[in-house]
């Protein structure tokens, strides 16, 4: 683990010092700071918090918010909620998958994009919805996806 990451870890542990039931909140903070939770991080946490590594791994692997493998620079998320589904989310996911050349849950080999599907973002009225790096885009069609991805690819 590099020093910068260890420092982040220290700060987060300090923040939750003494609070009950903190493990999930702590892992969420780690996820947003480090972008993924490595074996090393889990081992380190286990030593520091005196919680068995298996317990930490169980929590981290149960919840979708925690990534146990590295993610790409850009996160693309296609909403597959029912309202999006009846407005063509499956087609949108198919298009995005074929444009990026990966399946959902995967990261492109050059580490630029990670594609995920989510089971509802609660923007049902403007579906189908796609979230790119925390920005929500409503009423998306194949053309709009192409534009969004194109813009990001040229940025990175």
């Amino acid at each position, binding site marked *: 683990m590099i020093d910068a990451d260890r420092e982040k870890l220290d700060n987060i542990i300090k923040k939750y010092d003494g609070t*009950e*039931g*903190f*493990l*999930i*909140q702590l*892992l*969420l903070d780690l996820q947003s700071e480090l972008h993924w939770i490595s074996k090393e991080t889990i081992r380190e946490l286990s030593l520091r918090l005196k919680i068995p590594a298996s317990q930490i791994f*169980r*929590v981290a692997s*149960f*919840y*979708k*918010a*925690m990534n146990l493998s590295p993610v790409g620079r850009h996160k693309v998320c296609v909403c*597959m*909620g*029912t*309202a999006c*589904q*009846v*407005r063509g989310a499956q*087609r949108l996911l*198919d*298009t995005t998958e*074929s444009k990026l050349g990966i399946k959902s849950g995967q990261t492109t080999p050059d580490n630029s994009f990670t594609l995920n599907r*989510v*089971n*509802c*973002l*609660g*923007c*049902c*009225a*403007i*579906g189908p*919805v796609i979230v790119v790096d*925390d920005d*929500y*885009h*409503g*009423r998306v*069609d*194949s053309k709009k996806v192409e534009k969004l991805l194109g813009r990001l690819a040229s940025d990175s």
Partner: protein
Amino acid sequence: MRDEIKHKRDPRRKEVAICTGTGCLGLGARKVVSAFEREIERRGLQKEISIKETGCPGFCEKGTLVVVYPQGIYYMGVQPDDVPEIVEETILKDGLVARLLYTDPATGQKAIREDDIPFYNHQMRFLIKNNIKINPKNINDYIALGGYAALIRALSQMTPLGVIEVIKKSGLRGRGGGGFPTGKKWESTARAPGQPKYVIVNCDEGDPGAFMDRALMEGNPHSVLEGLMIGAYAVGAHTGYIYVRMEYPLAVENAKFALHQARELGLLGENILGSGFDFDVSVHRGAGAFVSGESTALMNALEGKVGEPRPKYVHTSECGVWNRPSLLNNVETWANIPLIINRGAEWFSSIGTEKSKGTKIFSLVGKVNNTGLVEVPMGMSLADIIYKIGGGIPGGKKLKGVQTGGPSGGIIPARHLQTPVDFDELKSLGSMMGSGSIIVIDEDTCAVDLARYFVDFLCDESCGKCLPCREGLLRMREILDGIVSGKGQEGDLQILKEIADLMRKTSLCALGRTAVNPVLSTMAHFPDEYAAHIIEKRCPSLACKSLVSYYIEPKVCIGCNLCQKNCPEGAIEEEEGSNCVIDQSQCTRCGICFDVCPPKTRAIKKVSPRLSPSFSSSFSFSSSSLTRLGKAKRGDKA
């Protein structure tokens, strides 16, 4: 203090309220806000006009929503380019920008104010009405509109038991899905022995298609907090949790901010408003698990554990989080509490049906013209919601049915549209109210595929703790996958029924017990569609990818070659001197050609059952010969 805030505010002052709920943000509200800021600065009007970023008033379909006060002029679909005109015409000259007003699609009539718009004026709005008037990050906005009056009344004039009596008398039932009488729940936590006790807001709104909790938590967090505080006073709790799913980052942010402001004003902490009552709240983020919305699973998650449900032999009202008495209610339930305390139990129970009282927020989404959040009295018919408020089905399509209750609910076919919507009526149709999603489905959605979608969703979300849910769902998915891909067999429906029966009787929590509803309700209401898939290998809605084919109708094709250019598989070839032809053996049925074919031409046709790989449309045929072709093919196989 309320008077002080009101006094400071000039009622004639011009104000631009811009919806910055997640829906409008997805349609570019952030850019609209910056455009207003730039324009107002450019004209040096900072003193005369203020900008208010508000929560979601419901009409997401027409975002970005902008309301100009004091007149209350309601603009829709506002883009950054429209902003200078609004400032010029409406704010400076008191005129209107007609093209941004709501236009009735039937009569062409324009509506200026909220009350003139049919989407709103058929509703009965108490819970979400104030969203457009409140900046969720400003507690004064809430107080100026009468906020925290109910808390003051409860703390100063009512006993805890008195509060519970009022809630019981109002007939309020839990809005999260179960419909359990709220007062009864409160009573049992109040009576449960042991301290400390906890009160919890469930904002883990996982039902796909439902987003009223998000809108309330983002748009009017203090109304939820006020309800929670009254509940804590009633049952004798001093600690509260707001559990928000991580997919709602803005709700987390606004909830935290609301707590901070309430603490600053002495509305949280020790000796609240001099009443001797101590109470504080913290926000917990969910980590992405649908099952965590189940009350016992949520309590496990609060304790930092894996969010799996516990058996409910002992009620959480007696033994909940940290094995202490815990009162958990849904966001919308909490938001109803201040209304009931302010206006009285009689007022509340005068709205709604015999057994379901008050109003309910529904999210009206899917294939309907006016999508968004609608708040109506319990008992309004589905037809009124879809046609009067929702404005009917777009594109002249036929309504097939309505999906309610998320993955735990079912599909109600169009012939039952007159059903009044309340807890018990929906249940009798094999669906349920759930948290209140109404997903409108037209003829393009396949009932079998929708059932498969829900089962697939739940396979993903089942926690795996109990066997019937874990294995039952997997087996159901296997069978339904087979049916939608043309591999269905005649005994499939019987097996599905048997699995469903077992899951219903033996699953640990409601997720597994109700997971069978989408399958059973579609089997009951749409038996023909199942038969078409299994026996004829045909999808009547032309939705199941494996059962459809595309071909180009030569007589109609104008030879623009758009389909050929866009086909990702190179499966479309131009035949010499004639039109394009789809090579059926190479086509993956992605449907891109169908989309790019100019709407005026529509030369690309979609058919089911599938055409044979050697099919070529270069010879001309009528649609009746195509049907014969399909039948002959089936005959050959037999």
